[in-house]
């Protein structure tokens, strides 16, 4: 398939699109019709006429400061700025009258008088709007002699910075000159090139919502400032999302990669491989060298925005740690031996076959990856089902959103977020529970914050005071800081208030749900023991605050629930998901824009990996393996019988390994040793196996226990699709050849064929065709459709040929929505005298998951190590100071890390991240799990914290073992 040529209009239309009634006007004699509210500038662009501009760009509201876009309008006096002037019916616009041309030339001349003439050696050469506009208005001379300016360090009247350096090789004599700020690892700020158009400041406010940047000074003294006086771009509140760099029309804010590698000359649209938002990016290249990633304005998940990870943290794909050759070893104590693909694959296949011969066909299995494509995941589960002949497949979603699958499946009939991200623009009350979007899902957070600034209300239910609770220009109406592990009690108490105060939507419930079931649920939640006053002692949540939150959600207009792993990763994760589904049903907040129940997915393709049949009990499309009619579809397609029994889940695989009945594992793109709970148990399980095959970019922690290492390809090196949290199937496009020689789906195919499968796929498109042929919700999905539409949301089939942005519009997938009783059951993980604190875990913006990718980028300047957040009271009781080494111990194990003292956590609660393998927070987490799905209880561990001198014995042993396990012998000649 040919490279994807962008068919969409990528021009900057100057001001945002509007959606009013049609208005007719003419621009330079060209008739055009645009929605009311549209600017004259945008109307001109729609007519194909470009009005010169500098301070306007279509991602930002018009500002009207540069005066370059002036036009003449018949019947109107003066020369209005076209960016701030709305169209009206019958308007006649002239964009090129002698008068406006003269004004523009004068404006440009003034701009250029305070701008260095270093164009040929400037990093933005060829990609500079100032340069373009000087050309467009026909500026041929600058009459002003060099005077006061911001660009000439020598103060000697030099026209360019190179000339200034020649005149004064050392030192500076111009007090107005400020040197370049190089503090951010990814971009520079060069005040000497700034035209003070405020696009960066406005992008920081309107698009990102951080409000870090500002203009300091007035008039000629005006300069962009990264924050408070003395702040640079690293020390300020800047989150390095790149919105300012994207908005900057000059080289003032410039990617370092462009400065180093030159302006890119070709681009392909692809999908970010970090979180579940699934942002669309343009990969911009010279040849096969990636120069930068920029957010694609037509990307329907991100609408032109990005975060520090997707925008900048792609350097891991080129990191020297990447393993590019297959490796094997007899025993995990041996050093690795680099071998040919053929030798590695036959070694792996022989071992797997020998294991199955001796221990039965169910003694081996696979783990699919939520970081790989749908097509790759589909093949891995097909490998176990059709080649290994069992259902031992599981995926990392086991440890994150498996309760979403169960909970939403039981209540609504399918495991999927109900909305698209655009829906947030219609939200009146957002409930964010167990999620920290500004760190975990930053682009969604920016879209939510934008809506909050427009007046929507916010309820945060989280043990920590996350940034959304209060940050620039937003504040939660209610923050319910619950004790970790009491989600069900809080959700049920919210239902209690809604039912007992009769705030429910009877008409909706009668029409869409089973009324008798609701009555049973209503009776249950109405019991006094579920009242917020009764549960306050248990949950730690103020009863009045909870009542107010319930009233707001039920009565505040469109109510939307957004949740994350703080909901799912509990003993009662599935119950909480059902409780949230109940809340949405009883308030009628489902089935239209601005409402719904929205799981924020952790990894890029969690949704897709679940859709693709990664779970051991269900085939692609969430259909249980026990159903003969479903098995028949795949038996016919694959020509083999399918095992009707569910297979092993990840924790079950490890248990069975320790028992000796599970001995071989193919693990693609997942690091279970670091990401799964109770590290010691995981290590024991892996160590007990005869053949562990790790397929990854790096020698990850799991590979320390592997016998075969198959090098993987990065998201830039393969074709396929990712499905984001809004069920949106986005294309992943091969930007460069795989450095390891094969795309990951090819590697799986090679392994399958080494086992005798005889697969013959030549492009992922064919795999998608097989998915569409076997899976009803994907029936209409083809690569051609994705080329045409850009992306599509499943279900996509005959009924919904263009996909389905909103679920459950006219009825639930299962028919009637089902209310399920949600009794709170305290977790067995309880604090006591030995372990008096509760540990909860999470993420930080700059790092991603186990850190395998982001630790290998400059993102580590923001987060070099995992820290333990502890409340000042708890720290004082233990004699801890900021930055002290502390020992963190639970009944499972102990580790050490440094303390960060903060009142973001409540007394009695401590918090850390799991991004660094030398900290190994999961040594401490336990093997307790969700009752329905075995999703581990990461969010609640009883711990003790004490001062420490340095790494624990376990950490030192682990580091030594890891070093031994990573030895590689050079390839034999």
């Amino acid at each position: 398939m040919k490279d994807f040529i962008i068919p969409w209009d990528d021009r900057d239309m100057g001001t945002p699109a509007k959606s009013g009634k049609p208005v007719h006007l003419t621009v330079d004699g060209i008739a055009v019709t645009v929605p009311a509210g549209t600017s004259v500038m945008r109307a001109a662009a729609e007519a194909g006429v470009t009005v010169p501009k500098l301070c306007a760009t279509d991602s930002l509201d018009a500002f009207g400061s540069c005066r370059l876009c002036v036009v003449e309008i018949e019947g109107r006096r003066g020369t209005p700025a076209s960016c701030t002037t709305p169209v009206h019916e019958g308007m006649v616009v002239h964009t090129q009258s002698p008068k406006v041309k003269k004004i523009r030339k004068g404006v440009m001349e003034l701009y250029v008088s305070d701008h260095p003439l270093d164009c040929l050696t400037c990093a933005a050469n060829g990609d500079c709007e100032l340069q373009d506009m000087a050309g467009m208005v026909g500026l041929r001379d600058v009459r002003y002699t060099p005077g006061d300016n911001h660009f000439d360090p020598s103060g000697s009247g030099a026209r360019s910075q190179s000339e200034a350096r020649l005149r004064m090789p050392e030192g500076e004599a111009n007090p107005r000159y400020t040197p370049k700020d190089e503090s951010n690892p990814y971009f520079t700020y060069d005040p000497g090139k700034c035209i003070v158009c405020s696009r960066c400041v406005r992008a920081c406010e309107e698009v990102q919502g951080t409000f870090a940047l500002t203009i300091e000074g007035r008039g000629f003294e005006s300069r962009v400032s990264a924050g408070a006086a003395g702040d640079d771009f690293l020390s300020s509140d800047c989150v390095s999302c790149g919105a300012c760099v994207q908005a900057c029309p000059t080289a003032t804010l410039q990617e370092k990669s462009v400065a180093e590698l030159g302006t890119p000359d070709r681009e392909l649209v692809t999908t970010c491989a970090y979180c579940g938002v699934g942002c669309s990016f343009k990969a911009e290249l010279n040849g096969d060298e990636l120069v930068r990633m920029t957010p694609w304005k037509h990307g329907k998940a991100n609408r032109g925005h990005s975060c520090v990870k997707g925008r900048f943290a792609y350097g891991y794909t080129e990191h020297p740690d990447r393993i590019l050759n297959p490796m094997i070893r007899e025993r995990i104590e041996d050093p690795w031996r680099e071998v040919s693909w053929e030798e590695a694959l036959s070694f792996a296949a022989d071992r797997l076959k020998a294991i199955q011969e001796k221990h039965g066909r169910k003694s081996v299995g696979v783990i699919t990856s939520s970081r790989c494509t749908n097509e790759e995941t589909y093949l891995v589960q097909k490998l176990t089902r059709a080649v290994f002949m069992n259902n031992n497949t599981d995926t990392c979603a086991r440890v994150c959103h498996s309760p979403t699958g169960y909970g939403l499946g039981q209540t609504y009939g399918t495991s999927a977020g109900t909305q698209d991200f655009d829906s947030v623009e219609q939200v009146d009350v957002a409930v964010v529970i167990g999620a920290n979007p500004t760190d975990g899902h930053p682009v969604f957070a920016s879209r939510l914050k934008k809506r909050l600034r427009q007046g929507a209300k916010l309820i945060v239910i989280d043990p920590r005071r996350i940034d959304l609770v209060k940050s620039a220009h937003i504040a939660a109406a209610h923050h319910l800081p619950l004790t970790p592990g009491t989600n069900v009690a809080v959700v049920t108490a919210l239902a209690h208030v809604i039912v007992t105060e009769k705030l429910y939507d009877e008409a909706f419930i009668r029409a869409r749900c089973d009324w008798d079931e609701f009555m049973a649920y209503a009776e249950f939640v109405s019991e006094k023991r579920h009242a917020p006053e009764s549960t306050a002692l248990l949950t730690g949540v103020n009863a009045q605050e909870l009542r107010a939150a319930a009233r707001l959600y039920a009565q505040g207009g469109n109510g939307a629930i957004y949740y994350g792993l703080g909901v799912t990763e509990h003993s009662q994760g599935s119950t909480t998901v059902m409780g949230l589904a109940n809340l949405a049903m009883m308030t009628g907040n489902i089935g239209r824009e601005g409402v719904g129940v929205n799981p924020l997915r952790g990894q890029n393709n969690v949704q897709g990996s679940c859709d693709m049949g990664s779970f051991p009990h269900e085939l692609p499309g969430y259909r249980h393996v026990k159903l003969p009619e479903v098995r028949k579809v795949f038996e016919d397609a694959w020509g083999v019988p399918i095992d009707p029994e569910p297979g092993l889940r990840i924790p079950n695989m490890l248990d069975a390994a320790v028992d000796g009945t599970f001995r071989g594992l193919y693990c693609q793109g997942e690091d279970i040793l670091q990401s799964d709970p109770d590290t010691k148990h995981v290590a024991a399980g892996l160590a007990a196996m005869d053949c562990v095959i790790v397929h990854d970019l790096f020698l990850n922690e799991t590979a320390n226990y592997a016998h075969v290492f198959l090098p993987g390809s990065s998201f830039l090196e393969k074709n396929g699709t990712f499905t984001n949290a809004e069920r949106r199937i986005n294309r992943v496009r091969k930007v460069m050849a795989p450095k390891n020689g094969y795309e990951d789906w090819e590697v799986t195919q090679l392994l399958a064929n080494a086992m005798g499968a005889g697969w013959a796929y030549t492009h992922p498109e064919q795999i998608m065709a097989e998915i569409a042929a076997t899976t009803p919700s994907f029936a209409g999905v083809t690569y051609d459709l994705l080329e045409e539409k850009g992306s599509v949301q499943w279900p996509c089939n005959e009924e919904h040929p263009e996909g389905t942005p909103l679920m459950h519009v006219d009825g639930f997938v299962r028919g009637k929505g089902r209310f399920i009783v949600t009794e709170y059951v305290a977790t067995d993980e309880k604090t006591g005298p030995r372990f008096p604190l509760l540990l909860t875990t999470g993420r930080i913006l700059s790092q991603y998951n186990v850190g395998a990718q982001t630790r290998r980028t400059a993102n580590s300047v923001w987060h070099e190590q995992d820290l333990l957040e502890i409340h000042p009271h708890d720290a004082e009781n233990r004699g801890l100071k900021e930055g002290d080494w502390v020992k963190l111990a639970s009944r499972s194990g102990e580790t050490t890390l440094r303390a960060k003292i903060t009142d973001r956590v409540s007394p009695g609660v401590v918090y850390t991240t799991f991004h660094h393998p030398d900290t190994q927070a999961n040594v401490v987490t336990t093997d307790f799990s969700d009752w329905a799905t075995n999703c581990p209880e990461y969010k609640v561990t009883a711990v003790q914290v004490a001062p420490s001198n340095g790494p624990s014995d376990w950490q030192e042993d682990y580091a030594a073992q890891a070093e031994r396990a990573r030895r590689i012998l050079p390839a034999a000649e």
Partner: protein
Amino acid sequence: MSPEKMVMMANQIATFFATQPGETGAEDVAAHINDFWEPRMRAQYLDYVAQGGEGLHPLAAAAAAHIHAPSEKA
């Protein structure tokens, strides 16, 4: 799998279904286990119940009658 862990998992499932209205608790627990527990886990469970089922929630013990015995050993 250690018996303690298995008992805990079964009891967690039983605890949930015990809170649900209706009289089908044992069948519901069994259906959940049939749907999600791999045959060797179910075999271990049935063995455990046959040996007395110490520590099991009453509903979890009652569910055993409805749990499908795996047709083959792993």
